[in-house]
């Protein structure tokens, strides 16, 4: 070590050199790819990318297309319900497991297990469970409740909730594990102090523990939201966008435009809109988390 203080840029030299390929790839692939996509969304590209400018035509057509509007609406419904329920269910499960119960490991594994399955498998499994001819409806009718009706995937008005059930089943476990880690990070003295003061447990959770878990909540939020925006495989496996177009989502619209309709321009316009959505969520978060204090690293 030399006596002069090395400049910040050259600290951990070998680590930084090792990171260069990754940084270059990330810049080239992600940033480069993003710019390329946005540029070509203003062209009339069909099967192959072509620089034939059409201004905002692709965006005008996009927002005049019913399928896209239905997709956005579905994403909003799915996203809102998913966020709400996944946090409530995940947190409650974590709080229950945190009561020093027996067989904690087993229960935790069982609840986390669905997350280890791909969306394709999840989608197919729930397609069968919700199928009126051999799923829940048939079993309940077999118990004697002959008029029982439960076929969300075959009713256009509620099909998206059928997808939501599968999404919750798959995602709740992960949220639970993250929350559990957060709960374990709370100092036991906080609980003792709250008990001494005679504060009921639910109030302690709501007013003391949850605010202390803010970093965990924010990480979970970002994970869940990005998962929601890019939802595609669950839909394809479970409903294929049907019945009709009632469970279409933006990512599927992008794929269909690009590869089925041979209309790259339209697909790029739709994916640019999706990028905007993600940016609207991620940028405020990044500013909140990493902005402000410089001594954070």
């Amino acid at each position, binding site marked *: 070590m030399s006596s002069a203080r090395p400049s910040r840029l050259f600290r951990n030299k070998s680590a930084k050199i090792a990171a260069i390929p990754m940084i270059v790839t990330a810049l080239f692939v992600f940033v480069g790819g993003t710019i390329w996509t946005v540029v070509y969304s203003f062209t009339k590209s*069909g*099967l*192959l990318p072509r620089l034939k400018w059409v201004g905002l035509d692709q965006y005008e057509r996009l927002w005049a297309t*019913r*399928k896209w509007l239905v997709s956005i609406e579905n994403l909003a419904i799915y996203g809102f319900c998913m966020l709400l329920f996944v946090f409530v269910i995940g947190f409650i499960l974590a709080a229950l497991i945190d009561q020093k119960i027996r067989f904690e490991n087993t229960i935790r594994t069982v609840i986390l297990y669905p997350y280890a399955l791909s969306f394709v498998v999840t989608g197919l499994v729930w397609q069968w469970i919700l199928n009126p001819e051999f799923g829940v409806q048939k079993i309940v009718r077999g118990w004697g409740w002959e008029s029982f009706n439960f076929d969300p995937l*075959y009713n*256009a008005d509620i099909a998206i909730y059928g997808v939501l059930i599968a999404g919750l089943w798959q995602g709740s476990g992960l949220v639970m594990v993250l929350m559990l880690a957060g709960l374990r990070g709370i100092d036991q003295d906080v609980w003792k102090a709250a008990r001494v003061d005679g504060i009921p447990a639910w109030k302690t959770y709501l007013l003391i523990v949850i605010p202390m878990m803010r970093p965990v909540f924010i990480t979970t939020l970002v994970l869940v939201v990005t998962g929601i925006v890019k939802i595609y495989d669950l839909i394809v496996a479970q409903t*294929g*966008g*049907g*019945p*009709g*177009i*009632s469970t279409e989502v933006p990512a599927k619209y992008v794929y*269909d*435009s690009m*590869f*089925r*309709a*041979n*209309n790259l321009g*339209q697909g790029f316009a739709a994916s640019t809109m999706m990028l905007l959505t993600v940016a609207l969520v991620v940028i405020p978060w990044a500013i909140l988390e990493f902005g402000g204090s410089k001594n954070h690293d």
Partner: protein
Amino acid sequence: MKWATNLLAATAIAAASNTSATELEVMHWWTSGGEAAAVGELAKAFDASGHTWVDAAIAGGDPARAVMVSRLTGGDPMGAFQFNHGRQAEELIEAGLLRDITDIAEAEGWKDIVNPTSLLDSCTVDGRIYCAPVNIHSWQWLWLSHKAYKDAGIDVPANWDEFVAAAAKLEEAGTVPLALGQQGWQQSGLFNVLMAALVPNDVFMSVYGDKDADVAGGEAVARVFKAAADARAMSSKSTVQNWNDATNLVITGKAGGQIMGDWAQGEFAVAEQVAGDDYSCLPGLGVTQLLSTGGDAFYFPVLSDDEQTAAQSELAALMLKPATQVAFNLKKGSLPVRGDIDLSTANDCMQKGLALLADGALLPDTNQLITPDTNDQLNTLFVEFFADTSMTTEDAQAQFVSIISSAE
């Protein structure tokens, strides 16, 4: 499948002895029973020429086209691939990715033997030929299950109106009157069949050929939408997805009928059903006797390897040889692209098709008239129309007009 095993064995031998035989990877989406049997005939013929057919099948036309296009544009071309000729390949040809096979076509005299000539026209861009048509497929067929009508105690219908009238009786007997897969291409296909069969010819051509919005919004097309609403009611209990599952409902007598292209015939053949005894077919729905002449064609990407290029030439020439045409089309249920071959072994339904072909009662296929983009918009419209019974025919027609008026 036996030929697949043979193929593997042949590949192993070729690899071991390092002979001059060339492997050619051929991509297609022929995966249902009848289709796989048909493509097996092509593979057998190609293998007999000393080369090796490396089969790369992908189930479903949409995913298959996506893979083919991304491999071509990504610089990893296959030896040959199947496409519906027409406007799908336009841009690939413009980009210079596909091989010009005019020399082969001229040497083999395709201009004189291909009938109808519109098939070769669809392969031609600026006077050069880019694909080898292998068959003629027509959409305008109504397939009827004799068992379903016998169970319901009524006669097999002879045209669309009788078919609609018989629906109530079938439903009483617990049979689905019309089998229809819940996929957009099947539903828009059904609509186009109704348009070709139930209203005069020129309506179809004005709508899809000239993209005339006035005709699309007119009285005749309104009648077609009414008929489509009938079809929607008749197929409300049909929950299958794939076309061959729907055909299977007709084969087993669980459904009265299905409107599907002549490729459905291959499924009846695989199930060992006899045309006229077990099932009937009504070209043009028994109303207007005419067929659209779409079909499948093989395209050949530009390759750098000379041996493979030579093998491509051989394959292209082979596909239109009389023997290959007969073997392939009998299995596929489609009509051959050349009018000069003997198909007396063909069954009742194919004979009807051949007769119409000879009469020239023909329409172009929608794939030859509209772009994949427009096609996809139509599929989306019909997937919605058939799933949502609250969507009125007027609403649907209004959307139809806006799609046609923005089509290129």
